[in-house]
């Protein structure tokens, strides 16, 4: 066992650290992390950041160098996530494009697709979103009903997507639609690259419980795609979507790193806030809670490193990523909820009136989605049970 990094890896880290110092928005490192709330401001902010990352060579770090990437190793990618988590860097708006669509096109896209899209993904010229979930297919993703019907050289797409992150800022959508109805739900799905700026595509914001707008409904009314916009084989979109997923190399790494950071902030909170005139951290009951959360946070982090080591040894990631996701999402909820508890009755104050720091209330509410998005905890448990432990599948109804 060895927790050290090679000199080269540490050099990679140092470079990134320095770059972040030089390039993060003003005041960001000091904790003044403000992102505009309006669509236009947000778009500009995120696009600027995406562009900076690209210019610095820090967008698509795992991409081959010939496409503008850094060709980073898996461990370098992990270091990248560590450092980004450490400074709570702004999200990469084009994460879908950079982490999944781009690599997928590089792997199985046509030459035209590569020419047309890949560069614009990395430099952030075109923002991508992902059209998977539908109102009636959430956990049961393969039950999707959005249809694409061929008419001449066009595919006419009708249906509705939901939970499409950043759709309101996106230019393109990696969309799954049903092109054949054979009764086998995993067959007959096709992956399309769809232009978001066309008449047949309408985006409607979803206001979430934290009063934010990240998710959207996307309505497709005779939206159009062309033969050239199909990724992989017709009717084999399910496989393509799995290819896409396989490019998610670092899994929930960033979240896990962030959580360990948030834990430190939690300790800070408990050291600062007082009850009966004494810092909370001196309260034996609080100490128990914090000790428990500490062991869990570290355990989660160490689990991640163990799974990472296995991925490196085997050359591919195993289903253990589901355990990271399950553990991370639930611990995240626990930590944010506890941070609210520590704040006492003023925990009800939020936004500009927040008593301690408005991020706590936002993060608390945001955390409620952790165990739903990207596969619910119930689905993750089934994956662990069936794929890791070999327990029976739920009845196929």
């Amino acid at each position: 066992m060895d927790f050290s990094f090679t000199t080269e890896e540490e050099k990679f880290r140092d470079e990134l650290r320095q770059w972040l110092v030089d390039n993060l928005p003003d005041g960001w490192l000091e904790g003044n992390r403000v992102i505009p709330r309006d669509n236009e401001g947000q778009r500009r902010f995120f696009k600027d950041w995406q562009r900076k990352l690209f210019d610095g060579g820090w967008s698509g770090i795992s991409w081959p160098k010939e496409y503008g990437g850094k060709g980073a190793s898996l461990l370098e990618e992990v270091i990248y996530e560590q450092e980004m988590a450490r400074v709570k860097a702004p999200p990469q708006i084009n994460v879908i494009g950079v982490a999944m669509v781009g690599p997928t096109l590089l792997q199985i896209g046509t030459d035209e697709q590569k020419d047309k899209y890949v560069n614009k993904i990395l430099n952030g010229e075109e923002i991508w979103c992902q059209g998977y979930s539908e109102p009636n297919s959430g956990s049961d993703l393969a039950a999707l009903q959005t249809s694409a019907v061929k008419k001449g050289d066009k595919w006419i797409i009708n249906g509705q997507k939901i939970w499409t992150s950043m759709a309101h800022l996106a230019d393109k959508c990696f969309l799954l639609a049903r092109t054949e109805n054979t009764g086998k739900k995993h067959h007959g799905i096709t992956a399309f690259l769809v232009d978001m700026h066309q008449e047949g595509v309408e985006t409607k914001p979803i206001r979430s419980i934290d009063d934010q707008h990240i998710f959207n409904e996307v309505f497709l009314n005779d939206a159009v795609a062309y033969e050239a916009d199909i990724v992989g084989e017709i009717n084999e979109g399910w496989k393509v979507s799995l290819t896409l997923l396989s490019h998610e190399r670092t899994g929930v790494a960033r979240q896990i790193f962030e959580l360990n950071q948030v834990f430190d902030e939690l300790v800070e909170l408990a050291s600062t806030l007082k009850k009966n005139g004494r810092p909370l951290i001196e309260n034996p009951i609080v100490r128990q809670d914090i000790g428990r959360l500490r062991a869990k946070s570290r355990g989660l982090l160490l689990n991640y490193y163990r799974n990472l080591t296995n991925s490196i040894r085997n050359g591919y990631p195993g289903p253990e990523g589901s355990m990271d996701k399950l553990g991370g999402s639930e611990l995240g909820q626990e930590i944010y909820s506890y941070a609210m508890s520590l704040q006492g009755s003023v925990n009800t104050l939020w936004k500009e009136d927040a008593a301690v720091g408005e991020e706590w209330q936002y993060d608390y509410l945001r955390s409620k989605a952790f165990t739903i998005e990207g596969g619910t905890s119930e689905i993750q448990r089934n994956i662990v049970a069936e794929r890791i432990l070999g327990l029976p599948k739920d009845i196929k109804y």
Partner: protein
Amino acid sequence: MEFALNEEQQLFQRQTQQIIKSKGDLEIPRAYSEGKEEVLDDLWTGLAELGYMGITVSESYGGLGMGPLTLVPILEEMGRAVIPGPYIETVSFAAPLLEKYGSTEQKEKYLTELATGERKFSLALLEGNGEYAPSNINVRATEKGNEYVLSGEKILVAHADFVDTLIVPVRTGMSEQDISLLLVDRDSTTLQLEKQISMDETRKMVKVTFNDVAVPKSQLLGQENAGWELLEIGVRGLNAALCSNMVGGMERIVETATEYANTRVQFGQPIGRFQAVKHKIVEMKMNLETGRSLSYYAGWALENNTEDVVEAIAMARSLITEAFIKSANDNVQIHGGMGFTWEFDCHFFLKRAKTLENYLGSPEDYREEIVNALVSDKESVAVGR
């Protein structure tokens, strides 16, 4: 031996249900939180007309002269719809305190107006970091002739802008417990009110600033420097009421989760068929019924002023507060993505539950109170054994 609502109480329950339904049910908190504050006036008027404000006011002041148990079903129904407004503060806190400790003049004026619904009350208690402790009362009342002059700041005053009178614990002496309760009428004083943005937008939170506000000494409720003790007695009623209110919320959660689980289909099955979902709702139901039993008992203990009343309320408050949070959380999970939307009602319960977590004490504080009571008096009381 009978442990259930009696017929009269059940009648109140049905009636409350009807009123709330007729006024829009969960649309009430939704409208209110979107700024349509007139729904609150409308509801208040409706309830007042039916005599709901005077339930705990004695008959001589125009009330029904009932005890806190009668409020239980009403408060549950209000909790079911996350109803905004100072009903609890007025009926479960101010009314009994005034009955017990008000001067004849105070009773005459305040209870009569309270019973008709003309006068609404709130509690302006918390300051600074929001801790519920005598040492945290720093709004000063300086004697000046026949008046107290108040200066300082109260926070998290529920619906201060909607009510007519605030009950304000103020510091009137040097030692920690030298606290007095004052009745501060908004129409005869100049208070600075400032809305505080609350996660639970169905309970409007207001910061109240006192800039040398003069209040006649006749507005003193109870004895000078005896305010903390009175407050604690008042808070018992408030807590028991909050418990019933939260139980109502839990009940609604169980219902909506069950309904959603019965109708939402995934993998060709209503999701309620999956034990992960099914048994989660069972856990909610178990907590609901245990919570309800404890809240009934707290109400009963309060009504009969039993020896174990403090423990009874502490048991209810500690268990229900946590169970409500858990249920509200799990309800979001069961609703999946939809539970995360503003459009669905799940978040009303989630926010109400979490923001009540530490209101007037944390679950830990109340557990400590249970054990305090247990150790000082080991004999089981009340429940015949």
